[in-house]
């Protein structure tokens, strides 16, 4: 699958990463599946609820997720992925990301923020057998 994002949405994610630097940020991606691609209508920034290690760990509140699903449903959208930042670290999923990724049907977006400036945003999908991530095309 590929993932469709507008330039504004990419900027929105990059800005969130820059705002929370040097801590990690996280948020959800709302959209639909159209013609075999995840088309994102909305980027939903959320709060990192981790109490410690916020510079290299992010955790989202399950109740925020529940609310996001309800909001998305009202607008005919679904939650199709989430994004987070890697301060001073490449936009590549870590073992931690792999161990904690919930769904193989999701897009995982990672933005690398170096010294306060967002670098690249890359998209990834988790294989069915959860053995590794493959890069996803962003269109």
């Amino acid at each position, binding site marked *: 699958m590929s993932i469709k994002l507008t330039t504004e949405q990419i900027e929105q994610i990059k800005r969130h990463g820059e705002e929370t630097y040097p801590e*990690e940020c*996280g948020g*959800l991606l709302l959209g639909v599946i159209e013609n075999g691609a995840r088309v994102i209508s909305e980027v939903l920034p959320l709060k990192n609820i*981790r*109490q*410690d*290690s916020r510079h*290299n*760990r*992010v*955790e*989202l509140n*399950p*109740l925020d*997720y*529940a609310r996001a*699903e309800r909001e*998305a*449903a009202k607008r005919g959208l*679904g*939650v*199709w992925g*989430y994004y*987070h930042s*890697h*301060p*001073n*670290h490449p936009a590549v*999923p*870590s*073992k*931690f*990301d792999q161990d*904690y*990724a*919930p*769904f193989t*049907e*999701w897009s*995982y977006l*990672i933005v690398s923020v170096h010294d306060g400036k967002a670098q690249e945003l890359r998209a990834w999908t988790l294989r069915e057998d959860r053995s590794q991530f493959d890069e996803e095309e962003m269109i």
Partner: protein
Amino acid sequence: MPTISIPTALRQYVGGQAAINVQGDKIGAALTSLTAQFPDLKKHLFDANGKLRNFVNIYVNDEDIRYQQSEDTPIKESDEISIIPSIAGGAASEAEVLARAASPELNKEEIARYSRHLIMPEVGMEGQRKLKAASILLIGAGGLGSPLGLYLAAAGVGRLGIVDFDVVDHSNLQRQIIHGTKDVGRPKLQSAKDRLSDVNPHVQIDGYELALRSDNALEIIKDYDVVIDGTDNFQTRYLANDASVLLGKPNVYGSIFRFDGQASVFYPKGGGPCYRCLYPEPPPPGLVPSCAEGGVLGILPGIIGVIQATEAVKLIIGQGEPLIGRLLLFDALKMKFKELKLRRNPECPLCGDQPTIKELIDYDQFCGITPPVAQPPVAETSDWEITPVELKQRLDHGDQVTIIDVREPNEWQISNLENYGSRLIPLGQFADHVNELNREEEIVLHCKMGGRSAKAYEILKKAGFTKIKNLKGGILAWADQVDRSMPKY
């Protein structure tokens, strides 16, 4: 009928629906009803052992069932059940990056040495290499440190740091099996290094012949992956705990007293409590006796120390269930293990939701230990004490002195001053016998080393006695300075 709402990503397995009606008065039944209707969904929610996958949370209204009765949580018609994923991510930690980059190779000799580890799938080459890449800090090379050091070196841990400034004493040999008779008088660190190098020459042993304190703890601990607390005093326990939590290191805890032991792993980062969650305040000084005062079955630290070593190895190779959030209690006399669940205290000043402790503190002050007052030179005695030599002189001179021994009966059996008319009144019963004593007599109080008798001195002083003295250094000092033939313990 209750309904379960399905997250977007899993709707394809339930025919595209966002919410499914289910039957059942408990969560377990409701989930079974769900997967019975949609078998494809099952493997996305449950693992091969039929347990909910760790990222799957089930909420009834706004409550996670894990904090209710899990699968037995009751549900009503009007309840909203939601399947909500845990979402977490993060960059590789420095330790992860280091471990992967530096995953050390094992040579032929090491492979032969660790063969009994390598042939078990839970360890294997990967686990053994993780051990070789690991650095573990042992605070104390005594009762707990001995089995810890021996077994961790044998297991092939790459680097062992040992903090101990003490010297080997005869009374250590009953339990500190890393030291031998030939080591009496040597620094424990040197003795430990020699023994461990013999057990496994591949282990790098870094010694710190000093006392761990607030001004050196963070610097020493930061380069280690796991901290193991083998200390014998509360100040160092709190210091080790605080430093470990501040640096994000797991602290493998063990303690022993007479015939009882405890073990746990304090690791708030791993979801559990820290030492302060369990014991927010230290006991008043003098309340909990040390091994020297209360005694300990020599074998006991062997058991607890090896439990600590086991937990450290499990943390490093990532296998099994660690004692995070669990306090293991061991009673050697009954030969029983018990376990208590421990939760992180959200109000813990160190690891809670709003921590107030962000640096190391003065632990002596915290534990109520007043710093030792500058001692006058040995030749002088302050008014309240009498040295053994002085006491002997007085007795030889024919002075009437009443000697009261405040130790325990089993200590009396080892050695006593009965020949000089000494009388045994154990400290615990001392207050009850005060009115049997004659204020007009000269009374000298003694115990093993001078601590307990000082307390008895206070009791008599408060009762208005004036002709009282404490035997400085206790019966051990008497054995050193007056009667060399007397056994020491």
